[in-house]
Structure formats: structure tokens, C-alpha cells
């Protein structure tokens, strides 16, 4: 939640994105605070990916005032990209590079010096207790480990905001929880975490959750308030209640 101590790092006002006649984002309004874990939920095709691309400076909105890390999404996309990190389940690291090479590659892209890359790589691998595998290629490593490494790589340049797009898909339940421990730690250090997931128990771990339906934000609040507003006992029920009507309309 936005407070004096925790200023907004993402500000979205009247965001609209059209593709021809199709409105992917229909007047979105929300702010995300520094150090907040913000859950960005919605049904498939609700418009989440479009919104994330705009916030990452990869796509220009049709209209609206949007700033990320204090930079404007129309004109200052290069500055935005330096201040954010991104990882997804589908693509995060190069499978045929080693762990060390992946850190070097991403660090290099963000313009870090070799000394800084070496220091941060050592520090992060040490914390993950994965120093022993730094010379293994990614395709030799189990998925759960990979996702933890990918999260670290996404933060090698110490971004203000990290975008996680279904970071735990297909990951076993123990590793999934360890991954969330890492998210909490990042947020405790003041990094803003913007996360999507299809696991509704993970929605409960977020400080606030927005639920997109058919291009619009249908609800945005703490998990507790959302449950109370909808008169149900879990985020799964909240989600199904809000998303179901639309889903029936579209087949």
C-alpha cells in the first residue's frame, strides 16, 4: 500500500491499449508501492500480458499516463528497462550456457563491470547454496533450481522493480514455497515485486492483488479484503466468482 515511507514506483492512470477494434486494456488505474508484493491475476486472455509489456517499456499504450520507476512509458523506455528485472516460466536463461555465463551475460547487458558481476554472482550463488554448480549448463539443472537462479539473474543489476510472470509454474510444492521466501526477502529489501500466477494459494501471499477480467481491473485490494468483499473463504473462490461470468459469455 502507498504511504509516505513507501512511495509509488508504478503509477497507472487511464491506461488504454487497443489492437484494431479489440480493447486489450480498458482504462486501467492502479499504483504499486515501493517494496510491495503486487499480485496481477486474471483469466487467460484478460489482458495481463499486454499490460506487463507496457509497464516494461516493450509496447506503447494507446492512451493514459503511466510511469514506472519515475519514468514515462512513452518516451523513457530505455531508462525504465535499466530499473526493472524480468523473469518468466517460459524464458529466463540460456539453456546451453553455464550458470556463471548466464550471470555474466545478463550483467553485461546491464552494463555492469566484470568485477561487479563476479562479486554479485559469487554472493548470490553462495546464498542459494549453488556455488558448486556454477560451471554446469542450465539444461543439466532441475527446474526448481533454475527458477531460483533465474530470479537472482533478474536482479543482478539491483532493479527497483522485478516482474515475475508465472515464476512457479510446474515447480514442486516445496521449491514453490522456497521461491516465495526469496520474493519476501527481495520485498523486505525494498524491491517491488509484480507477480502473476495461476496458483491461487500464492495470491494469498501477495500484499495486494488485482484481478483482471475482460480487459478491466474488476477488483484490487488485499487478499483478506477481497475475500470479505466477496463473502468467500479463499482467493480461489474470489477469482472464480469474478472471472466466471465473463468466461461463460466468451465460451
Amino acid at each position, binding site marked *: 500500500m502507498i504511504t509516505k515511507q513507501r512511495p509509488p514506483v508504478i503509477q497507472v492512470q487511464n491506461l488504454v491499449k487497443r489492437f484494431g477494434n479489440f480493447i486489450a486494456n480498458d482504462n486501467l488505474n492502479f499504483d504499486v508501492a515501493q517494496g510491495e508484493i503486487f499480485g496481477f491475476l486474471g*483469466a*487467460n486472455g*484478460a489482458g495481463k500480458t499486454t499490460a506487463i509489456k507496457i509497464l516494461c517499456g516493450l509496447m506503447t499504450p494507446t492512451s493514459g499516463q503511466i510511469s514506472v520507476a519515475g519514468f514515462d512509458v512513452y518516451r523513457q523506455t530505455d531508462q525504465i528497462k535499466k530499473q526493472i528485472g524480468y523473469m518468466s516460466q517460459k524464458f529466463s536463461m540460456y539453456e546451453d550456457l553455464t550458470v556463471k555465463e548466464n550471470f555474466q551475460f545478463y550483467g553485461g547487458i546491464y552494463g555492469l563491470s566484470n568485477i561487479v558481476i563476479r562479486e554479485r554472482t559469487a554472493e548470490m550463488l553462495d546464498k542459494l547454496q549453488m556455488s558448486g554448480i556454477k560451471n554446469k549448463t542450465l539444461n543439466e539443472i532441475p527446474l526448481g533450481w533454475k527458477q531460483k537462479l533465474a530470479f537472482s539473474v533478474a536482479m543482478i543489476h539491483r532493479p527497483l522493480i522485478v516482474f515475475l510472470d508465472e515464476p512457479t509454474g510446474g515447480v514442486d*510444492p516445496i521449491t514453490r*514455497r522456497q521461491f516465495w521466501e526469496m520474493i519476501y526477502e527481495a520485498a523486505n529489501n525494498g524491491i517491488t515485486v509484480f507477480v502473476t500466477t495461476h496458483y*491461487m*494459494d500464492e495470491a494469498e501471499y501477495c500484499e495486494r492483488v488485482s484481478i483482471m477480467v475482460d480487459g478491466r481491473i474488476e477488483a484490487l485490494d488485499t*487478499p483478506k479484503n477481497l475475500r470479505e468483499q466477496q463473502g468467500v473463504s479463499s482467493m480461489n473462490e474470489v*477469482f472464480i466468482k469474478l472471472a466466471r461470468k465473463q468466461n461463460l459469455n466468451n*465460451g
Partner: protein
Amino acid sequence: MINPHIHIEGLTKSYGNEKALKALSVDIAKGELFGFIGPDGAGKTTLFRLLATLLLPDSGSAEVLGYDTVSGYKEIRKQIGYMPGKFSLYQDLSVEENLNFFAGIHGTTLQENYHLVQDIYQHIEPFKNRRAGKLSGGMKQKLALSCALIHQPKVLLLDEPTTGVDAVSRQEFWEMLKNLKEKGITVVVSTPYMDEAALCDRVALMQKGSVLKINTPQQITAEFGHALFSIRSDTMFKLLGDLLQLENTHAAFRFGDTIHFTSHNKEETSQSIANNLIAQGHHNVVVEPVLPTIEDCFILLMKMENNA
């Protein structure tokens, strides 16, 4: 089991040094809705490809509808419907063209077998001229299921049909599977979502190519063997740390908006745990005994396996 629809014995498959499936044995009855539950790397896709006669086992055997997957593959292919994990329909054919294609290669037509797919197909029929590649995730999944059903298979093999699909579409999909099962079709499905296990008649919990347990979901949760408590306080992050430090803690992990906790001390009660936490400065402590879910059981079994 007498005359199972699927009979698997010691089925093993490696890729190089990687053991993808380790001596799996299980029987699946006619008309059963059977789930293989586990994370990526559990061996689910390898198993489905073996059953669909697309891979040869290293050792062990599998029979589908009484035919061996190696010597009887031609018969099996006629009588099963297989929906691979990766969307594998023709993206540049329309919805209707895809269905006609799959009907055609099995020597039937959409008109002839319309009744078989009607319940599912009618959801996407309004979009029948749209190219498959342009469908949303939920609609792709319904088309893929229709294509797997069009030749009236006796056994359906669905490899992770709900992965990456939102909670609403997942719920609808499981309702469809229940209807298919009621028509007498044997439905074998895999999923990484633990909550979907409860919707199956029986499940195999899998990890790293091995089976942790096979049983009904009810029996698996009944065999959990520990008193499970759901705990909440004002400071959840601190709560987890404090619970892990308690003398008799067996396990503590986040579970939605609460922490699930088990103790080595069989005398432990909600009250004794709450007192302990209040003494450590927690406010608004709520401790309730709860029934374990499949995910609780999976975590416990994983821990036992990892410690073994």
C-alpha cells in the same frame, strides 16, 4: 484388478543417464478417472508418450485395452485419444478444419460423431471459422479435447491439459472430464496442480520418475499420520520463523493465508501452540486443527523421500 483398461508393470525409461521413469507399476480400471500428480520432471510426459505408443520402454511393459504398447501399437492407436501437453493442433487450420482432419484420419466424420463432442464443442462452435492459433488458452484446450474424442476412444490420455490455464477454465475442464468418465470412458490425466488430485477417483503422486503413493485421494489424506494445525497471527513472516524454531516442530510451511504446522509432540493442542506463540509476542493468534490436503501429503512424502 480384473481386466484393467491399462496395465503397467515395471515400466522404465531413460534418456542417456537421466532416468525419466523408474519401474512404474499400476493398473487403471475401465471408466476410472485416474490422475498422475507431480511437478515438472516427475516423468508424467514420458509415461504418457509410452502409453500412447510414441516411445519404447527400456524395460517393463504396458498394456492398453489388452494390447501391448510395443507389439500392439496399431490397435492401441485406433482406440485411444491422446492430448499432448504442448498444443499440437494445426495453428493455421480453422477450428472446424482441425476437427474434420482428426475425424478423417480415423475414418469418421464430424457429422457422424457430433454427439460425442457436442458438450465440449458447442463452447467453441461459434468460433468454428477462426484459426486454431488465434484461440484463447481455454478455447484451445476445448478444441484439443474435441479432437482427441472425435473417433470415440475408449481411453483418453490427457497430458497436463490444465497447465498454465486459469482457475475458472480449469474448473470447467474438470467438469467435462467428469462427464466423459460417466459415459464409461477411461480418463488418464496428469497435472502439476495438487488441488486437482481431489477431483480424481485415484491418483499416483510422482516425483523424479518415482511413485510416492498410489491411492484414492481420500485414503492418501487419511494416511497423513500427523495432527495438522492451521495457524495465523498478525505477523505472518515472523510467525513462520518462530514456528520453525519451536522445540517439537515437525514441519511448518505457508499454505495460502495461513501456516500449516505439524508437531513431533502428540500431546500438542491448539491451545498449547497458541500459548507458546502468545508468549513469543504474537497477537491475534488463531490455531485451528485442519484436515490435510493432497498438497500437505505431497510435501510430507517429498520430505521423507529426500531424507531417505
